[in-house]
């Protein structure tokens, strides 16, 4: 895994976050309490003089791990976050990707409509998946949340798309360039608080956090951020290998993303 220059990454992310605030009237961010979206919030605090200037949305299906709820409460207080909890009901007949592909986007749609957000910051990274690697820093979604991946806007020279469909919104991806190991190096350098689920307990830890239904832990003895970094330096296993939806069927990620999955 390639370690990049953190300062270069940081500058690009700050620029993208500030652009989003300049270009769009109502901006919000998704916060899953995972390492990526928490790092994004740390970057936003740097970009906007110490405070996160947009609401953060947690799509809460009430089956997240208890540690996650505790973490949410603590950090929201510490960083003075404007937290929107969007309850999402788990329908028992939907499992795996059908669940992720339907429940979460539908709940998100409701929140977006209710508040009228026109930009949504999502902390995806290119190295997570071949389909995510095809994303832009800013990417329009129509009112049904669809991603027109066959005709993405041009993006060059620090000029990002600002085209808004009626009822649609723009996805903002400030962490697109970061690799998993960069996130951890940054967490270490900046002492960013992280969800305790990432650390090993009884020989296992989570590498990527979804909800309890779909996330499987990996064998690991990494109990500190430093341990995680050295683990990543040698691993050949993909980050999302613990997510069941990625493995199910062909092009499931493409289908999910084109329909509005985050």
């Amino acid at each position, binding site marked *: 895994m390639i370690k*990049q220059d953190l300062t270069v990454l940081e500058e690009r992310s700050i620029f993208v976050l500030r652009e989003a605030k300049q270009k769009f009237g109502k901006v919000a961010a998704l916060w899953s309490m995972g390492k990526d979206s928490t790092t994004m919030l740390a970057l936003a605090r740097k970009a906007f*003089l110490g405070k996160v200037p947009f609401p953060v949305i947690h799509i809460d299906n009430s089956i997240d791990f208890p540690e996650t709820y505790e973490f949410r409460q603590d950090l929201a207080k510490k960083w003075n976050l404007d937290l929107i909890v969007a309850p999402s009901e788990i329908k028992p007949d939907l499992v795996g990707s059908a669940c992720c592909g339907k429940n979460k986007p539908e709940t998100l749609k409701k929140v977006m409509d209710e508040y009228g957000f026109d930009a949504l910051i999502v902390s995806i990274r290119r190295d997570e998946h*071949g389909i995510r*690697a095809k994303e*832009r820093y800013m990417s329009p979604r129509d009112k049904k949340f669809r991603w027109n991946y066959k005709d*993405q806007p*041009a993006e060059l020279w620090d*000029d990002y798309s600002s085209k808004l469909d009626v009822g649609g919104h723009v996805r903002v991806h400030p962490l697109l360039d970061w690799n998993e190991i960069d996130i951890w190096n940054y967490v270490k350098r900046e002492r960013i608080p992280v969800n305790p689920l990432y650390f090993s307990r009884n020989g296992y830890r989570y590498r990527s956090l979804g909800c309890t239904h779909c996330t499987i832990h990996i064998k690991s003895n990494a109990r500190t951020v430093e341990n995680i970094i050295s683990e990543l330096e040698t691993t050949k296993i993909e980050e999302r290998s613990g997510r069941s939806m990625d493995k199910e069927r*062909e092009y499931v990620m493409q289908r999910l993303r084109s329909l509005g999955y985050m």
Partner: protein
Amino acid sequence: MIVKTISLLGHKDHGKSTLIGSLLMHTGSATQVRIKEAEAYSKKLHKDFEPAFILDSFAEEREQEMTYDTTRAEIKYKDLAFAFIDVPGHEELIKNMISGASYGEIAVLLVSAKADEGIRDQTKRHLFIARMLGIESLVVAVNKMDLVGYDKKRFDMIKDGLSGFIEKIGFEKTMVSFVPVSAYKGENLVKRSRFMNWYKGKTLIDLIYSGTKKQSGNKTGALRIIVQGFLEGQRDFAVGRVVKGNLSLTGGFCISPGNLPVKIKSIIVKGKKVKKAIIGENVALQFDKKMGSDLRGSVISNKGDCPEARAKVRATIFITKKLDKNSSIRFNGSDIQIKKMSVAEYIDPTTGTRSTNGKMELLSAISADLILSKQIPAEKFDETRELGRFVLYSDGAFAGIGTITGY
């Protein structure tokens, strides 16, 4: 680790995605999951293993065997990391090609040596665009040598056929190198090929390595900060980025357009008050007073050294969509109407030839004088890249790119 970005260039099917896929495999940079997945889809589509599928991740891209949109993949080499940018070769996808290539610091052009492929219009168009984007260092990989019996004559033919054009459009000879490869078989990519002993030069990856060292970095010079706007509700607090020179609190400053004098009370970088900021840094600047006018797209410089604001510029423009009455340029975040455009020269990007009469054609270029609805703080592209370039929009849709060559 320092990451150098490398844009691929070349006609459709000449092997761009295959080359990156192959390099990932030969340097052990692709994860097993990605390789296995590419393998499974090759099999499913009844094909031998296609390294291109490591990059081409959309179902459509694999089924139709062409790249639709740009993506990236990274490789570690010696003390550097290379981020390869794959782009589509298809003419209709030039918008995506430009988007990808714009992030490249150097370029690798693929030309297939196969008898019915060779140098094509699109090959040359991509080179022309790369030059416009400011790419100076170029490696030409003559590909699919396995299909022509690793014949030196075929390599020489393509090299000779392209060298003149490459120089004509402004690449310096010392910044360009040629290498015969088979992207598919991995010949001359990371290891010297035993089928091409007649080739005495470096492998592709070593040429890329030395190419990135040749590329000149940011030129130093007078301070230029491009303003993104104000912090929400604070008209005495602007955010922006230093694109040239260094910022320190001493002396006065000015804002262009308008040549407005301004005092900066404090500089904040990444949440901390500092005395100085350097090129590449995003800054927040506190002025001594609230500003009346909107500052998005304005430039802050040291007093007496402001770029002149102009409503007329001469630019080279590459056009991808018909320009209608409602055309505009996007210049550092603000949209400015084009009131009048008069063409000085028509440039054929497939030959580099300029002529004073001709027709404005798509996927072609012009040199033109633009009269704008508003003054912009413009400089020549060669002086300050960020102040010498714009994106063209027609009827709200991407219509091309421009670089400023004069006033």
